[in-house]
C-alpha cells in the first residue's frame, strides 16, 4: 500500500497526459482517441485506494510537484473519474460521433485539470491544473461558429481568465504570508489566519473560486455556457469541472479556526446565490439553462455550508461538503445526459420520465435518493437556527426548480442545435441509476447510513419537496406572467459595460498617433531625461 498509493497518484495525471501526447503522434492518434475513455481509470483506482486505506501523498521536488489525496478529495475524485469514464465510454466512443481532434485535445486537457485539482497539494501545481480545467474547456464548445456559441465562448473565457487573475493574486498573497517559504497548500492555509494579507487573500480566494462556482454576481456565464455546450461536454463540465471551485474553497479556506465575519459573509453570499439561481431558473424555458441555474443554486448551498463551517471553526466540514458535492457531480452529469436522450426524441414518456424526475428531485433531497444522503451530510453544518431554515427553504426551491426542469424536459429537442449522440438514449438510464445508487456506497465514509434513515429524517427530507410541489403548482398557473429573463441574466450588463470600455481604445489610438510624431517623441525624451535628472540629483 505504501508504494501503490503514490504510484496511482502519479498515474492519475500521467496516464491522461500520455493519451494527450499520443494525440500528437499521427500513428497513435486513432488508437488514443478510441481508448481515451480509459484515461481516468488510474484516478478512480487512486480514489478507491485512498477511501479504503486512508490518505497518501507523493512529492517530486525536481518537478516542483506535490500531490496528496485525502478523504474529501478522494470522494470527489472517485465520482469525477467515474463521470469522465462514463461519458467518455458511453457517449464519445460512439462511432456515430467521431471526435474532432481539436475537441479531443481540449477534452483530455480539461480532464487532466479536472482530476488534477483534487490531488494537487502545492500552490503552483494547483494553479496549473486549475488553469487546465478552466481554459481548455473553451474548446469543448466554442469551435461552433454559431453566434450564440461564440458569445458564450467569449463570456466563458473572460470569466475563466478573470478567475485565474483573482487566484494568482490570492496565491501570491498566500505564499507571501507563509513565513518559511513553503508552497504546500496546508502550510500556506495554516499561516493564513495570522497573515498580514489575510483579508485581501480571503476576498480573492472567494472571488476566484466563486467565479468558477457561479456565485452571484459571477453566475451569468454558467447557464449561458451550458446552454451552448454539446451534451457530453456539458455533463462533464457541470458535473466534474465546476467542482474545481468547490475543492478550491475546501482547500484554501482556513476551516478549523473560527473566522466569524468571513464565514457569515460567505454563508450570506451562498444563500443569496442559492435562491437567486432558483428565482431566475424558473423563468428559463431551455432545460439546459435550467440545469445551469440549478448548478448556480447548488453551488450557493455549498458556499453557504462552507461559510457556516468557517464561522464555526469546523474542521470536519470538508468531508461533508465533499459528499454533498460528489452527489451533485453524479446527478448533474446524469441530468445532462437525460436532456440529450430526451432531445433525441427516442424516449417514450412513462417510466423513463419518472426516473428523470427522481433524478432531478435528488438535488432537492428526495428521500431514498443520493440527494437525501447529501442533505443529511450537510445538515450538521447548518445547525438548528435560521441557517437551517434557509437550507430547508433552499431545498424547497430546488424542488420547485427541478419540477420546472422536468416539465421542460420533453421540449429539450427545441433547443438542441447539434444532434445528440445516439447511444445516449440507451445509456442514460444506467447513468441515472448509478447517480441514485452510488451515493449510498460512498456515504459510509462520512456518516452512518442507519442514522440517516429515521422517520423524522425522512420527513425532514420530504416536506421541502412537498412545499416545492405546491410552489410549482402555483407557478404553473402564473407561467405566462413571469418575466422573460435572458439566459445569463446579469451577464448582459457586464457585456454592455465591456463594450463601453472598448470605446476607450480609440483614445489609445490618438495617443499612439500623437507620440508617433517627432516633436512629441523628442519632447518625451527630454522630459524623461529631466525627470530622471531630478530623481538622481544629490
Amino acid at each position: 500500500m505504501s508504494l501503490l498509493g503514490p504510484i496511482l497518484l502519479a498515474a492519475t495525471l500521467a496516464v491522461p497526459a500520455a493519451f494527450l501526447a499520443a494525440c500528437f503522434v499521427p500513428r497513435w492518434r486513432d488508437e488514443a482517441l478510441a481508448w481515451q475513455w480509459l484515461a481516468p481509470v488510474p484516478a478512480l483506482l487512486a480514489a478507491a485506494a485512498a477511501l479504503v486505506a486512508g490518505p497518501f501523498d507523493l512529492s517530486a521536488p525536481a518537478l516542483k510537484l506535490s500531490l496528496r489525496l485525502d478523504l474529501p478529495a478522494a470522494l470527489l475524485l472517485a465520482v469525477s473519474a467515474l463521470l469522465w469514464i462514463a461519458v467518455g465510454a458511453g457517449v464519445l466512443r460512439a462511432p456515430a460521433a467521431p471526435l474532432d481532434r481539436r475537441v479531443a485535445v481540449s477534452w483530455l486537457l480539461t480532464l487532466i485539470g479536472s482530476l488534477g485539482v483534487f490531488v494537487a497539494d502545492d500552490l503552483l501545481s494547483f494553479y496549473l491544473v486549475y488553469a487546465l480545467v478552466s481554459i481548455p474547456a473553451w474548446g469543448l464548445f466554442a469551435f461552433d461558429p454559431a453566434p450564440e456559441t461564440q458569445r458564450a465562448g467569449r463570456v466563458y473565457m473572460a470569466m475563466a481568465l478573470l478567475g485565474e487573475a483573482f487566484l494568482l493574486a490570492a496565491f501570491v498573497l498566500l505564499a507571501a504570508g507563509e513565513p518559511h517559504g513553503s508552497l504546500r497548500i496546508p502550510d500556506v492555509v495554516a499561516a493564513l489566519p495570522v497573515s498580514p494579507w489575510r483579508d485581501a487573500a480571503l476576498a480573492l480566494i472567494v472571488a476566484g473560486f466563486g467565479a468558477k462556482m457561479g456565485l452571484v454576481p459571477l453566475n451569468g456565464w454558467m447557464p449561458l455556457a451550458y446552454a451552448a455546450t454539446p451534451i457530453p461536454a456539458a455533463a462533464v463540465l457541470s458535473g466534474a469541472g465546476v467542482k474545481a471551485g468547490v475543492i478550491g474553497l475546501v482547500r484554501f479556506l482556513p476551516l478549523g479556526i473560527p473566522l466569524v465575519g468571513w464565514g457569515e459573509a460567505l454563508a450570506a453570499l451562498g444563500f443569496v446565490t442559492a435562491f437567486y439561481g432558483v428565482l431566475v431558473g424558473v423563468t428559463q424555458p431551455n432545460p439546459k439553462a435550467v440545469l445551469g441555474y440549478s448548478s448556480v443554486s447548488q453551488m450557493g448551498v455549498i458556499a453557504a455550508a462552507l461559510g457556516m463551517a468557517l464561522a464555526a471553526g469546523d474542521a470536519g466540514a470538508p468531508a461533508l461538503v465533499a459528499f454533498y458535492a460528489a452527489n451533485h457531480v453524479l446527478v448533474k452529469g446524469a441530468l445532462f445526459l437525460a436532456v440529450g436522450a430526451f432531445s433525441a426524441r427516442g424516449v417514450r414518456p412513462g417510466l423513463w420520465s419518472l426516473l428523470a424526475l427522481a433524478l432531478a428531485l435528488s438535488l432537492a433531497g428526495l428521500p431514498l435518493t443520493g440527494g437525501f444522503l447529501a442533505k443529511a451530510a450537510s445538515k450538521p453544518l447548518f445547525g438548528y437556527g435560521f441557517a437551517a431554515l434557509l437550507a430547508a427553504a433552499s431545498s424547497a426551491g430546488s424542488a420547485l426548480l427541478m419540477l420546472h426542469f422536468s416539465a421542460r424536459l420533453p421540449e429539450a429537442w427545441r433547443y438542441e442545435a447539434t444532434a445528440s449522440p445516439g447511444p445516449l438514449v440507451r445509456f442514460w438510464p444506467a447513468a441515472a441509476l448509478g447517480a441514485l445508487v452510488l451515493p449510498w456506497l460512498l456515504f459510509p465514509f462520512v456518516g452512518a447510513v442507519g442514522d440517516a434513515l429515521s422517520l423524522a429524517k425522512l420527513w425532514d427530507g420530504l416536506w421541502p419537496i412537498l412545499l416545492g410541489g405546491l410552489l410549482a403548482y402555483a407557478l404553473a398557473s402564473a407561467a405566462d406572467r413571469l418575466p422573460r429573463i435572458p439566459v445569463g441574466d446579469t451577464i448582459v450588463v457586464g457585456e454592455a459595460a465591456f463594450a463601453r470600455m472598448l470605446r476607450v481604445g480609440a483614445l489609445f489610438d490618438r495617443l499612439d498617433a500623437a507620440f508617433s510624431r517627432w516633436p512629441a517623441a523628442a519632447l518625451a525624451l527630454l522630459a524623461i531625461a529631466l525627470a530622471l535628472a531630478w530623481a538622481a540629483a544629490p
Partner: protein
Amino acid sequence: MTPADVPTAGGALLALAILLPAAGILASFALGGRWPERIALGSAPFALALALAITGEVWRAGRPIVYAIAGLSPPLGIALRADGVSAVMLVVTALIVPAAGLYARPLFATPPDGRETRKAFTFWIMLQAISAALAIVFVSGDLFNLYVALELLTFAAVPLACVEGKPETLAAALRYLLFALVGSIFYLLGAALLYGAFGTLDIALLAERMRPAPAVTAAAALMTAGLLAKTALFPLHLWLPPAHANAPAPASAVLSGLVVKGSFFLTVRLWFYVLPALPAIGFDAILGALGSAAVLFGSVMALRQPRLKLLIAYSTIAQIGYLFLIFPLAAGVHPWTAMGWNGGVMQVLAHAFAKAAMFLAAGLVYESLGHDRIDKFAGAARAMPLTFLTLGLGGLSLMGLPPSGGFAAKWLLLGASIASGQWVWALVLLAGGLLAAGYVYRILAPALARAPIVLKAPPRRAGEAVALTLALVAVALGFMPDAFFRLLDIGRPALATAGLP
C-alpha cells in the same frame, strides 16, 4: 584595479565569444557568395558551446569571470566580465540567432549559380553582426566599449529591418535609425561626463569611485534616457511597431526577441552596477511607472491591431514594460530583491523565446495565407495546426499562464511587489496578463473556427519545427530548477555591495 577586475580562470572564453562572430563577419566579407550563410550557420554550434562553457565556468567559480584584454587591467586596459545573467544571455543569443537563421535559409538563399545577392549577403552578415554586438553588450565591463557595442547593434539591426528593400520598410528603418542615433548621442554625452568626473569608464572602478555630483546626475539621466529610446519604452516607442512589423519574420524575431534586450541590459548594468551608490530616490518609481504605462498602452494597442505582425509588435512594447519593473523591485538590499531580480531576468528570457517563436510563426502564416489580417484567419488553425500551436504556446507565456517562463516571471515579480508593499506593480502585472489573454484570444479564436480556407502553400515544415521549438523552450522555462536562479544570482550587485562596508 579593484578585486572585481582581477582576471580569472576561463576569462579568455569571453574574448573568444566576441572574436568568433567578428571573425565570421570578416571571413564572410572576404569570401562572399554562399559563404556568409554557411559561416553564420556553421559557427552556431561553436558559439553555443562557448556560451555553455562560459556558463559552466561562472557556475563553477560561483562568481563573475573576468578577462583583461591584452593583459592590461583597468584603468589602463579594458576588462571583459561575465556574471550569471551575462552567461545566460549569451546562451539565449546562441540559441535564438541560429534559430532565426535556420528559419531564414529558404528566404535568403543564394541562387544555385552561387551568384551573390545583396539581400542574402546583407542578411547573413548582419545576423552575425547582431551576435557579435550582443556578445560585447553582455560581457563588456567598460561603458565606452559598451557604446561601441550599442552602435554596432543599431547598425546591424537597421539593415535587417529593411533588408527586403520595400519603400515602407525603408521608411520604418530610417525612423528606427534616427531615433536610435539620438539615443546613442544621449548615451555618449553621459559617458563623456562620467569620464570627465572619474577618469575611467570601467564599470567596477566607477562603482567604487561613485559619489554624488551634478555631472553624475546629468550623466545618469542622459544615458538612461538614451537607452530607453533604444529599448522603445513607452512613450519612446514610435519606431518599434513599423520596424518590427515590416521586417522579414526572422529579422523581426531577432529584433524583438534579442535586440531591444541589449539596451535594456545596459540600463540594468548602469543602475545596478555603476550607480547603486548614488542616493537616487524616485528613479526606480519613474522607470516602474513608465514600464507600467507601456504594459497598459502596448496591450491595448495590440488588442486593436488588424494585422498579426503589428499585434505582436505592440505586444513587444507591453512586454518590455514588464522588464522595467525590475528597477523598483530589485533595487537596494532587501529580502525581496532576489525575487524581483530573478523575475525580471526570467521575463527577459521568456519574452525572448516566446516572441521570437511568435514572429516566426507569424511569418509562416503570412507565407501560407498571403496576408496576416486577423479577421480573415477563420479555419487557419486547422490548415496549419503546428503554426497556431506555436502562437498559442508563445501566447501562453505572454499571458503568464502556467506552465511557462512568463508565468514563472510573473509569479516572482508579483511576489516581490507584495513583499515590498508595492501593490501598484502587482495590479499592473495582473491587468497586463488579462489584456494579453485578450489579444492572444483575438488571434486564436477566429483561427480555430470551422471554416474552409485555401492556403497559397502549406507551411514550411522546417520553419514550423524551428518556431515550435522556440515556443517549447519558452514553456520549459517554467520548469527551471532552483539551481538556475542561483546561477542568475551570481554577481548580482545587491549581493556584492551588501558585503562591502
